């Protein structure tokens, strides 16, 4: 059995000072390439905003939201982005509690991804409700008729689950940043940066008293975030499983959704980190060792997801319920066959290549596979939501929902919104947890007996 050593993670010659220098160097003002990419992203975001404004002005009809699929691409996007967020919390919280050695180098970017993915996900219920200015009706406050929200509704559970997840993830992200922001403050040369990091680092000095309370609090954040990883996507799955729509009403949904979320999230971590490592000269810190560890997570969760797809079919037939049987035959062979087989190819078949160590250690291959997994996971949600809704109990009410231009424009805008936030973040705050990387290298010892 092979075991990893510190040398697999980063070179021996790395010192505390080198880590601080290399990682704070990523905060240097952006070059032309970065600005050009950013401008492109802003253009995509402008398309999304224009589509949303048009939808608000004209009405939800322009998004093609009509019978029989009232939950179309927007809810697919919502579930997709919540899922993307999961890997960050998994890596930052669960792997922290399990003391996984590859976590320290990759968790900051993953956590940033979580926060921004949840922020992106949070836009979709607002976009989907149409009259966005009434979003506050979801909050349990007394209105004139003293009519309260319905706590029995999974949609209301979602409001609480997503708000809690967003809050805890953001706080966890920020608390993890504080010691690193102090390093950035103490190394900053420009007045603006010094002032910015002085405010953001909250006066952190790394004194033993601060560390004592910090480590205690950090452990609790990890402990709180861990059940959230499981619970949030379980709650999202109940949005569907609590309904009696054929294809939705199944008890396997929570674990199936959680595994799928981790699969898509880890894939997105790879999609982001492989280019980030290259562009920011972080080759010494993010190595093949880290990518291979994440590739194994993809293999594992892909197998769970494949098993869940198979079980869904098995249970549909085993139940003997003709609506369920019809639904699953339709899913694989009906009008949405292309979406179903895209999902199977991307989530079940392509990740099998990762069984080969050669593929797992090839960064280009990993990057391509991660993009396929992201596509597959988007189609998984599209299958569950749109396909099921358009093929319910009454044949006369069946239909086919084609994604509209507006929905596609807003989906594009959501990706651009996410990348805009992520790229801004890695230029403004240390994209790797330099304080925690210092924890895993050899400690500086003079050799005196201690």
């Amino acid at each position, binding site marked *: 059995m092979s075991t990893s050593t510190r040398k697999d993670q980063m070179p021996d010659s790395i*010192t505390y000072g080198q880590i601080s220098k290399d990682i704070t160097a990523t905060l240097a003002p952006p070059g032309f390439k970065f600005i050009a990419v950013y401008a492109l992203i802003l253009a995509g975001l402008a398309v999304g905003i224009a589509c949303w404004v048009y939808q608000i002005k004209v009405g939800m009809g322009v998004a093609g939201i009509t019978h029989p699929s009232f939950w179309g691409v927007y809810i697919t996007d919502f579930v997709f982005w919540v899922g993307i967020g999961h890997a960050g919390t998994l890596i930052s919280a669960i792997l922290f509690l399990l003391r996984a050695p590859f976590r320290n180098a990759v968790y900051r970017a993953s956590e940033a991804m979580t926060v921004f993915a949840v922020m992106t996900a949070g836009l979709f219920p607002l976009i989907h409700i149409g009259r966005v200015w009434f979003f506050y009706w979801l909050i349990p406050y007394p209105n004139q008729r003293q009519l309260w929200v319905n706590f029995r509704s999974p949609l209301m*559970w979602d409001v609480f689950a997503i708000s809690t997840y967003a*809050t805890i993830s953001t706080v966890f992200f920020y608390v993890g940043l504080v010691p690193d922001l102090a390093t950035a403050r103490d190394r900053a040369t420009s007045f603006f940066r010094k002032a910015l990091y002085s405010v953001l680092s909250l006066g952190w000095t790394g004194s033993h008293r*601060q560390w004592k309370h910090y480590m205690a609090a950090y452990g609790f954040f990890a402990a709180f975030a861990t059940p959230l990883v499981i619970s949030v996507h379980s*709650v999202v799955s109940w949005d569907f499983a609590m309904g009696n729509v054929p294809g939705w009403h199944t008890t396997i949904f929570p674990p199936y959704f959680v595994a799928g979320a981790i699969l898509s999230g880890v894939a997105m971590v790879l999609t982001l980190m492989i280019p980030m490592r290259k562009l920011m000269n972080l080759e010494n810190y993010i190595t093949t060792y880290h990518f291979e560890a994440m590739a194994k997570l993809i293999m594992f969760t892909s197998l769970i997801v494949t098993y869940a797809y198979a079980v869904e079919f098995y249970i549909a037939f085993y139940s003997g319920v003709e609506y369920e049987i019809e639904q699953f035959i339709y899913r694989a062979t009906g009008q949405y066959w292309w979406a179903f087989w895209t999902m199977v190819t991307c989530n079940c078949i392509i990740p099998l290549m990762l069984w080969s160590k050669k593929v797992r250690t090839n960064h280009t291959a990993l990057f391509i596979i991660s993009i396929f997994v992201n596509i597959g996971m988007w189609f998984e949600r599209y299958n569950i939501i749109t396909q099921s809704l358009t093929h319910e109990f009454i044949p006369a009410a069946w239909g086919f929902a084609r994604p509209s231009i507006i929905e596609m424009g807003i989906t594009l805008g959501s990706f651009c919104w996410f990348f805009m936030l992520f790229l801004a973040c890695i230029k403004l705050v240390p994209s790797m947890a330099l304080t925690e990387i210092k924890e895993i290298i050899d400690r500086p010892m003079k050799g005196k007996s201690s």
Partner: protein
Amino acid sequence: MSTGQHLVGVYSYVDTTMDGIRKLKSSGVRDYTVHMPTYIEELAEEIDQDSSPVKWVTLVGALVGFASAILMTGWMSWDWPVRISMKPVMSWPAYTVIMFELTVLLGGIANLLALFGFAKLPGLGLGPGFDPRFTDDKFGIVVPVDDSSAEQVRKLLDESGAEEIEHVGA
């Protein structure tokens, strides 16, 4: 009585910093601050601190969250009862999600506030004797001194291998 004077020992190594802490402790010096660029468990253990009280505040926050979820869902259910068939007005199994989420939310917020409170964050200044290298690659021991103790503390820091010793506030 604080004189505002501090001796700051700057170290590059964990073991020399450890020696510095041991020498101060064995000489009866109890009031000192150790700065670390990253958390070093052995140093924290050597300083021999009590465990952080953050956990108690977090526990209270979590319990308040749990209780407030029970009260909120229960009160709102009975304030406008929606009676469907023979189903209970307060259907607590459906409310466990709200209870769990508010437990985590308020526990997490209490945890943050406890961290801020006990670690004195946000702080207005960086404290006497703080050196920017302490968040980079150096360890530091800052000891408040007066005219009579300064020489003894300087000797202890020097013997333990401090590479620089600075007298601030003198």
